[in-house]
């Protein structure tokens, strides 16, 4: 009887972990273009977990993991705008709306809506954005692309640079998930 109980517990734990999908190498690309200045940065160290049981998603990354071609742009990004020493992490906590209506066993790409709380530069805003999710041979990947307003996250651009740096910065986010198993 005791063994039976153990088996039941083990099954519970195993299913619980198989229901989670994880990545530590998700990407976020940021992009801004004005006639004066183009900003392109890439972060390849974004961590995320998708709970396939209820569609809950969290993502987190270190701001200083954003890399730019020009070291000076990277310096200004960290020092003057994102203030990565004071606000080292950016975090998303949310869910995929109506995730239960998706059939994970059928391969294909589906349009989804994502909503949740996005924290950047110490400021948290509610976001609701379109995205896509792809199931292929049991592998789940997800993408979304949306602009964020610097003002909304209290990232201050000095007047002298407002022509070079627009308020809306485009984020392109992509995650290739793997099933999560506890270390």
């Amino acid at each position, binding site marked *: *009887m005791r063994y*039976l*109980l153990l088996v*039941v*517990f083990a*099954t*519970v734990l195993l*299913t*619980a972990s198989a229901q*989670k999908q*994880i990545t*530590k190498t998700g990407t976020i690309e940021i992009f801004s273009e004005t006639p004066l200045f183009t900003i392109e940065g*890439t972060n390849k160290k974004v*961590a*995320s*977990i998708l*709970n396939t*049981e*209820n569609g*809950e998603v*969290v993502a*987190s990354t*270190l701001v*200083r993991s954003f*890399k730019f*071609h*020009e*070291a*000076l742009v990277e*310096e200004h990004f*960290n*020092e*003057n705008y994102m203030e990565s*020493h*004071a606000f080292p992490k950016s*975090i998303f*906590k*949310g869910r995929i709306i109506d995730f239960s209506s998706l059939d994970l066993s059928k391969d294909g790409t589906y349009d989804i809506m994502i909503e949740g709380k996005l924290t950047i530069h110490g400021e948290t805003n509610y976001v609701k954005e379109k995205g896509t999710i792809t199931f292929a041979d049991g592998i789940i990947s997800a993408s979304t692309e949306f602009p964020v307003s610097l003002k909304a996250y209290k990232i201050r651009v*000095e007047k002298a*640079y407002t022509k*070079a740096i627009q308020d809306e910065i485009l984020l392109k986010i992509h995650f290739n998930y793997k099933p*999560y198993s506890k*270390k």
Partner: protein
Amino acid sequence: MIKKYILRLFLILLVIPFSHVSLYSQDDLLGILDDEVEEEIDYTAYTFKSSRIINMHSIEQMKTGELDFRINHRFGTVNSGAYEMFGLDNALINLCFDYGVTDWFMVGLRRGTYQKTYDGSLKFRIFRQSKGLKVMPVTLSYYVDMSVNTLKITDPSIEDIFSNRLAYTHQLLIARKFNERLSLQLIPSFVHRNLVPDDEENDIYAIGIGGRYKFARRLAITFEYAYASNTAGDNKYYNPFSIGLDIETGGHVFQVFFTNAQAMVEKAVIAETTGNWLEGNFRFGFNMSRVFTLSKKSH
């Protein structure tokens, strides 16, 4: 007996439903992420705004493929009065090219008005201040400079051979960024000049200290001082002291300051500074730096 089975059945029934209910909240998911993501070495960046504190090198250097072009000026002494526009009529200039071969190795070439000097320098970063996975309290770099005085020799008693024109500076740069505002650096230095006047020493040891206090987003106060051994007697030379302001704009760092050193090459700053602050014998100067990215590397 039956009671015992009922109890067990009850326990099983209690457990089964959980396999269909989320056991995790979003915060738990974030907790899993924190556990899963390996801690990294968090290198301290941006200890100084520029590769120079004022006259002396800071631990900052160009990244791979970056070229720093500098136009540095030191004007005449402020106590030269209104006739000389307080020194602005006379300027010594120094053109510098510093190139980052790798993130930890920089080469520099310069030409300065003072003694019509050409000099070449190398800067190596040995280790970096860091926290996280590896804790290191300071950044350590090694800087070496070789300079050539190309003045025409008018004194017939001096043999005009090339080696007589050479001088060398070796410096350890030890810096710590205490916080976002305050960074300090120690600079143990050794200067060797192959040929010096009778009353001077060939070898000079010095200890420099420099720092910055960043008081606004793009502004910092800077200072530096060096105590040199064996400076000649009769108040011929003074220890270099400078105080200034770093102003950062888009692609430039603009450094303005007052200093008693007339030259910019290290051997002269340390061993041949003639200005006495107490007599108003200091000068206005500026370093203007523009960084060009020559080869774009993806990190």
